[in-house]
């Protein structure tokens, strides 16, 4: 303990001296999370699931004038999530080097790929999930990002392995992800629209890893995606979603579009009834071809309840109907989220 503390201080002291600082302070914070689910479905048993529990450790290294580095580590403790689905929710560990207002930020490590709405909307701990597992094949990846704000425009660029977190890279191919987003705050509400472009070799699943946690990628394939996303906050109404198209495989993404393109869509609406209760609804669609054959889609209503005096505890309930390549199934899910 003493040794660890000594080396930590020595490291930060050396780092601070290296960038010409005579003073540096490290502030640390710790957040604990637990996700407990009760499920019952047409094709799944009535079950209790601790899908995951985690510790999020955050540190900020500051001089007496500005932040020098932010460090986040999300540690999975226990839970039933496993395999590739676990790697889509757990494994964030990165350092951010902010270069000050008006300049870019550098992010290094394992973090969420900034494609579509997942660039800014954290679906971790939500019953409703966008179809990124079938679309991109991953959510968290190992790489380097640049991001920042230029006037009203948010920009993101990430170069990554395309392998999910905690995995050694298997090839020279890298995934490039770009996103631009614009926010407009009007008297009637806040409107944010983003456009994303992604290209690289990525895992491809035939079976949805969120339904079958034992699912592994059937292949790694060159994917090209053009995506649009939106987040609209109106009085008493939130609407967010994304749509993306692009081919799997091929070297000519545009001429290949009619033959190989997938279509992915997601929309989510939330209507607050009071401070602690909101109605939710979702429609999610993954279509492996233009014709719509083999489409996987899911929709349903839900409720989100926050304990009045303890915002760290929320309960979500959803009834979802799923069509999986022609087969219909229904499920009910109750999720308790505790974040302290």
């Amino acid at each position, binding site marked *: 303990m003493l040794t660890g503390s000594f080396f*930590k*201080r020595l490291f*930060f*002291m050396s780092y*601070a001296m290296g960038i010409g600082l*005579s*003073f*540096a*302070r*490290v*502030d*640390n*914070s*710790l*957040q604990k999370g637990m996700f407990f689910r009760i499920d019952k479905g047409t094709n799944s048993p009535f079950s209790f699931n601790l899908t995951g529990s985690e510790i999020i450790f955050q540190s*900020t290294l*500051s*001089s*007496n*004038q*500005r*932040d020098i580095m*932010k460090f986040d580590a999300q540690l999975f403790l226990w839970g039933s999530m496993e395999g590739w689905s676990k790697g889509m929710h757990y494994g964030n560990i990165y350092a951010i080097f902010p270069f*000050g*207002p*008006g300049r870019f930020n550098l992010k290094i490590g394992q973090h969420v790929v900034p494609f579509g709405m997942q660039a800014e909307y954290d679906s971790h701990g939500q019953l409703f999930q966008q179809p990124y597992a079938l679309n991109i094949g991953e959510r968290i990846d190992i790489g380097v990002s640049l991001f920042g*704000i230029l006037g009203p425009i948010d920009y993101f660029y990430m170069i990554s392995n395309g392998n999910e977190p905690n995995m050694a890279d298997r090839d020279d191919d890298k995934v490039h992800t770009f996103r631009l987003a614009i926010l407009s*705050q009007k*008297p*009637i*509400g*806040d409107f944010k629209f983003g456009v994303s472009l992604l290209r690289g070799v990525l895992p491809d699943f035939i079976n949805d890893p969120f339904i079958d946690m034992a699912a592994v990628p059937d292949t790694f394939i060159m994917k090209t995606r053009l995506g649009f996303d939106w987040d609209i*906050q*109106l*009085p*008493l*109404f*939130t609407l967010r979603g994304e749509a993306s198209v692009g081919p799997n495989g091929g070297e000519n993404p545009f001429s290949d579009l009619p033959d190989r393109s997938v279509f992915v869509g997601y929309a989510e609406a939330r209507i*607050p*009834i*009071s*401070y602690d209760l*909101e109605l939710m609804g979702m429609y999610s669609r993954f279509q492996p071809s233009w014709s719509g054959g083999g489409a996987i889609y899911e929709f349903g209503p839900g409720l989100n309840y926050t304990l009045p*005096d*303890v*915002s*760290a505890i929320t309960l979500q309930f959803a009834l979802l109907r799923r069509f999986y390549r022609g087969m219909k199934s229904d499920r009910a899910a109750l999720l308790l989220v505790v*974040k*302290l």
Partner: protein
Amino acid sequence: MIWTLIVFNSLCVWRFPDRDLKEIFNADAYETKLVSMTEEQQSDIEKRLGAELDPDETEFKFFLVTRKGEPAGVVSTHLSKGQYGAIEVVVGFVRDADEKTTKIKAVRIQRDREKAHAALRGAKFLDQFIGKTPQDKFQVGDDIKAAAEGAEKSSAAVAFAVKKMMVVYDVLFPAE
């Protein structure tokens, strides 16, 4: 010199630091400071607020703003309990060395879903806070007018968030 501090937190993010720094302080940098409190400080804060802190409010985050290396002010963010969900409030304030107190420079709403969305974000409502100190009441119907008719609860939520941040800063960083 290295200072380390560990706190446990559940805090509101600052969504638009670049914009707020420029528009409120014409500043060029900020430093994040996490502060935990002693039981004595918590008791003092609750007494001055006339209300208990939430169970998960065990520490607070302040952004110390600088302009060309010199202190220019402080920003704090807070998730307030509105009528239809959380209201994200940003408070910018400066310490008045002569009067040994802090004064509000600007208040902003980052995110909300309230019915009176436009009125809550309007200058008519938010500019009422400018110049107020932690010693003020921040009471809707007294020294603060509601943003709109029927928006008393939302307005009170914003006013309470602003007062809380001012009082917390005043207790945790007492004027010398």
